[in-house]
């Protein structure tokens, strides 16, 4: 089961409302390398992991990704707060507005809805952990491109936090991969 904590993991600030950035940033909500994909990927892969360390790390990183999803939602919410329909139109978010008003929805920067095709659970723990390490690297790169796109130091402060988390997660998945490979090697020796 899961228990909600009524607090963010990080004090997520934005300097000013910015619809253009909201449009770009939403890809980390519902895009291919976003936080929803990360959370759902890890939490569904954990059932087939062979070692306790791997079950633990997928559960815990999957759970942390839910906290990151909430941070992204908070940032997009703050970036769009108080925007007028005219401003929304000018930022190219007219299509988004027609479908969702200013609600948060799981889409990428071009409005393409989230799909389970973004993720995989292969049943082969080595293959799955490689996917997870790649996912962390892709998310890290996405945060870098978002930082490049943004000129808001407050927003970038939170994006840098999230980027650094990808690096730590990569390290943990890498260590998990070593443990799992070693476990599989041992099993093959009779």
């Amino acid at each position, binding site marked *: 089961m899961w228990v909600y904590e009524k607090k963010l993991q990080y004090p997520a600030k934005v300097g000013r409302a910015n619809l253009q950035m909201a449009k770009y940033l939403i890809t980390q909500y519902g895009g291919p390398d976003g936080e929803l994909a990360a959370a759902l990927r890890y939490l569904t892969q954990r059932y087939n992991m062979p070692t306790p360390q791997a079950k633990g790390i997928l559960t815990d990183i999957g759970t942390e990704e839910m906290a990151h999803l909430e941070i992204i939602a908070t940032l997009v919410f703050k970036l769009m707060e108080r925007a007028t329909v005219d401003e929304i139109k000018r930022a190219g978010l007219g299509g988004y507005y027609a479908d969702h008003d200013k609600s948060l929805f799981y889409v990428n920067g071009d409005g393409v809805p989230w799909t389970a095709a973004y993720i995989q659970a292969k049943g082969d723990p080595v293959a799955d952990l490689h996917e997870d*390490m790649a996912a962390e690297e892709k998310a890290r790169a996405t945060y870098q491109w978002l930082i490049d796109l943004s000129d808001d130091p407050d927003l970038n402060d939170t994006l*840098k936090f999230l980027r*650094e988390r990808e690096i730590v997660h990569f*390290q943990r998945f890498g260590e998990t*991969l*070593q443990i799992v490979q*070693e476990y599989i090697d041992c099993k093959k020796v009779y």
Partner: protein
Amino acid sequence: MYSPNDQMRLARAYVPFQIYSERLNPMEGLMKGTIFPELYFPYREHKR
């Protein structure tokens, strides 16, 4: 666990294990996104 001295074999990825020594204080760790100085690799913004 594999140490760097072990024979590494082909067609396999290796990530060295972190060895915990010191950590940043809680607030500094939160601000940086990790409490582990050896895992802190900040992105330097540049003109692309």
